[in-house]
């Protein structure tokens, strides 16, 4: 990347401390690096590559669903595509991309020289490529990849062949990586802030990541426990989930979703932080209701622990349980609503301009809210019995994850890439990327609401002819959206190679410590703690 060249060319340093100021030469730099910017870059590239692998799987799914009947792939492979698509997109794209952004931006946002535990940082990244090599290699094994859905419900998942052991092993690795990354982020935020950077002056992205890190530390181990139980049930004769041995398959769902629901917020809270950074910049107003944003984030995190059984309304719960989980779920819409209204209030009467990051951020607010509203519909227990396991659910969580989490990642990339590379990206192409993506993402996911309400089940490769038209439209949207992401890669590569030189501030009036350092950011920043003044904090 170009910042390394400039760091090398930096004059005025004595010979003896040169190695402190630039990256090691050659490829080994990326293997041995402990620099937060290098590791952030590695995470982001990893996520981008996995995005195309997971995307290719999604296109196989949509290709098969383009018309009724079985035409391209056999049902078993179809099922492993739906399973793998989810695992890759959740654990291989959204989570590593957020960790990459955290690595790049958190030290620069709070004015720290690096992450607190740099070697741990290197380790937590380099586990990921191995974990995913193991996970993806199951697709080439005799017994095939996991095909029981990413939720790994027994007894179905226990009928998988011996490659199941590889799946569990890979999940353990991903979990270890996430927990280590989170510990690092928590230690950085607590210990590395310079004097004056109090908790309530931290940028929202730092706040949301602090809370996300706690969610990860608290829930990933529960998931690790659940998959370990699956492993011992499958290979070592225990009966945690086998009714024949006195266990209960429904118990797996409780343990899984105790992890799984906070996981949903792990995938969206950093996105809230990104959007809370971008909207004030392009509305040229400070974030409206900073304190309420912090409290709302914390409330969402707390509530996420007591709503898990809303994924299980059809398993036969007592009425009291159904009511509890219905109301606690609906309660989440209160802090989420606070956030949405705060973003709107930030834009209200602002001097708004619509550069690409802002387009993605505004797109996020609108389309995430669509996904949030269908979530409220799903929270209604009696209605959920109709919606459960239909394409309505698929439409819901794709609206919050694709034009939600993924859009926030694209917004973040456009917003910070001038800081990373020192060059402005191609604004015209960026706007094209936004509009093409936004049109196709809606063509792709909106029809799924209709077929879902009409009763089309998810995770099935074939369907009734009555669903044919909407599925064909969704498939067109899928290919349009998928291929338009090649434009994203082109814009990134073009920006790395060159472009209009970026100023330190990059965006007119942008606030925050990351905009006080040069563009591209030098290899080491804030080796001397910066002074925290009213103009260098975001609120």
């Amino acid at each position, binding site marked *: 990347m170009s910042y390394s060249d400039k760091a090398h060319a930096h004059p005025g340093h004595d010979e003896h401390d040169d190695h402190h100021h630039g990256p090691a030469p050659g490829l080994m730099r990326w293997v041995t690096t402990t620099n937060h910017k290098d590791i952030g870059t590695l995470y982001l590239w990893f996520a981008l590559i996995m995005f195309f692998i997971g995307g290719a799987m999604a296109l196989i799914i949509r290709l098969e669903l383009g018309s009724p009947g079985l035409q391209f792939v056999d049902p078993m492979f179809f099922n492993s595509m739906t399973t793998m698509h989810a695992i890759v997109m959740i654990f291989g794209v959204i989570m590593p991309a957020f960790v990459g952004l955290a690595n790049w931006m958190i030290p620069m946002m709070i004015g720290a020289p690096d992450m607190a*535990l740099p070697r741990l940082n290197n380790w937590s990244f380099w586990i990921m490529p191995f974990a995913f090599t193991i996970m993806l290699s199951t697709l080439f094994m005799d017994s095939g990849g996991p095909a029981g859905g990413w939720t790994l419900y027994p007894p179905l998942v226990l009928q998988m062949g011996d490659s199941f052991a590889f799946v569990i092993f890979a999940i353990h690795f991903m979990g270890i990586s996430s927990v280590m990354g989170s510990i690092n982020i928590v230690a950085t935020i607590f*210990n590395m802030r310079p004097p004056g950077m109090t908790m309530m002056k931290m940028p929202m992205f730092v706040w949301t990541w602090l809370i996300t890190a706690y969610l990860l*530390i608290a829930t990933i181990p529960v998931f*690790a426990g659940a998959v370990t139980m699956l492993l011992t049930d499958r290979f070592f004769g225990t009966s945690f989930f086998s009714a024949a041995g006195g266990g209960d398959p429904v118990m797996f769902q409780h343990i899984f979703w*105790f992890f799984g629901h906070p996981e949903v917020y792990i995938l969206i809270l950093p996105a809230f932080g990104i959007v809370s950074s971008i909207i004030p910049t392009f509305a040229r107003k400070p974030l409206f209701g900073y304190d309420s944003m912090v409290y709302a984030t914390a409330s969402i995190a707390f509530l996420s622990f007591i709503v898990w059984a809303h994924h299980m309304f059809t398993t036969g*719960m007592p009425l009291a349980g159904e009511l509890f989980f219905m109301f606690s779920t609906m309660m989440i819409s209160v802090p989420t609503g606070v956030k949405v209204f705060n973003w709107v209030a930030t834009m209200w009467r602002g001097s708004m301009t619509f550069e690409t990051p802002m387009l993605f951020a505004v797109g996020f607010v609108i389309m995430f809210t669509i996904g949030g509203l269908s979530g409220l519909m799903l929270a209604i227990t009696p209605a959920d019995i109709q919606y459960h396991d239909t394409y309505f659910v698929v439409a819901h969580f794709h609206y919050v994850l694709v034009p939600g989490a993924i859009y926030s990642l694209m917004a973040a990339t456009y917003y910070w890439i001038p800081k990373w590379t020192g060059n402005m990206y191609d604004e015209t192409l960026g706007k094209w990327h936004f509009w093409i993506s936004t049109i196709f993402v809606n063509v792709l996911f909106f029809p799924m609401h209709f077929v879902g309400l009409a009763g089309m089940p998810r995770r099935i490769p074939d369907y009734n002819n009555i669903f044919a038209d909407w599925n064909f439209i969704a498939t067109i949207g899928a290919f349009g959206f998928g291929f338009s992401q090649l434009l994203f890669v082109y814009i990134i590569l073009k920006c790395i190679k060159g472009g209009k030189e970026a100023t330190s501030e990059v965006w007119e009036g942008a606030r925050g410590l990351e905009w006080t350092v040069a563009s591209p950011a030098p290899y080491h920043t804030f080796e001397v703690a910066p002074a925290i003044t009213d103009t260098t904090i975001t609120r």
Partner: protein
Amino acid sequence: MSDTQLHSLKRHGVVAGKSLLLAFAMFGFGYLMVPIYDIICEVTGLNGKTGRVSVAEANAVQATDRLVTVEFVASVNAGGSWIFRPQVQEMQVRPGELNHATYYAENLSNNTVVGQATPSVTPQSASIYFNKTECFCFTRQVFEPKGSKDMPLTFIIDPDLPINVDRVTLSYTFFKSPDQAT
């Protein structure tokens, strides 16, 4: 290493140590959810788990005049080659009275196999009032190749059974036991 560096390393160690402790505690909590789940199921009758009482306890209960219909259902888990059915489809019982029923099972395979039945009662609200003194589901059942047997069941319905329940379904699923070492 300078003093300040050592100091900050110590502070990072404290935060990392506490976080790691939380992670391990939550791993343990995942396993703790297993007994917690069992207790909740037992107390609330969730999943139709039935109770077990001794004969002496059952005899101490005063029989009532009320009549409740008990239906018997049998199913075989996928992959098992058995015949499995109740000897009577349903019976009228008085809460507080000890009752006997029998299920018939036959091994269709040419191997010795061990079977295990698991019970479930619907409606769920009735399950905590449905108690058994003796049941073939309490133990694993060993079958000779092509062997068959009648398996007894003795149960008592608690007189406190909610008044709106007049029909209780007892369902057994017959599994090939995971523990085949006989």
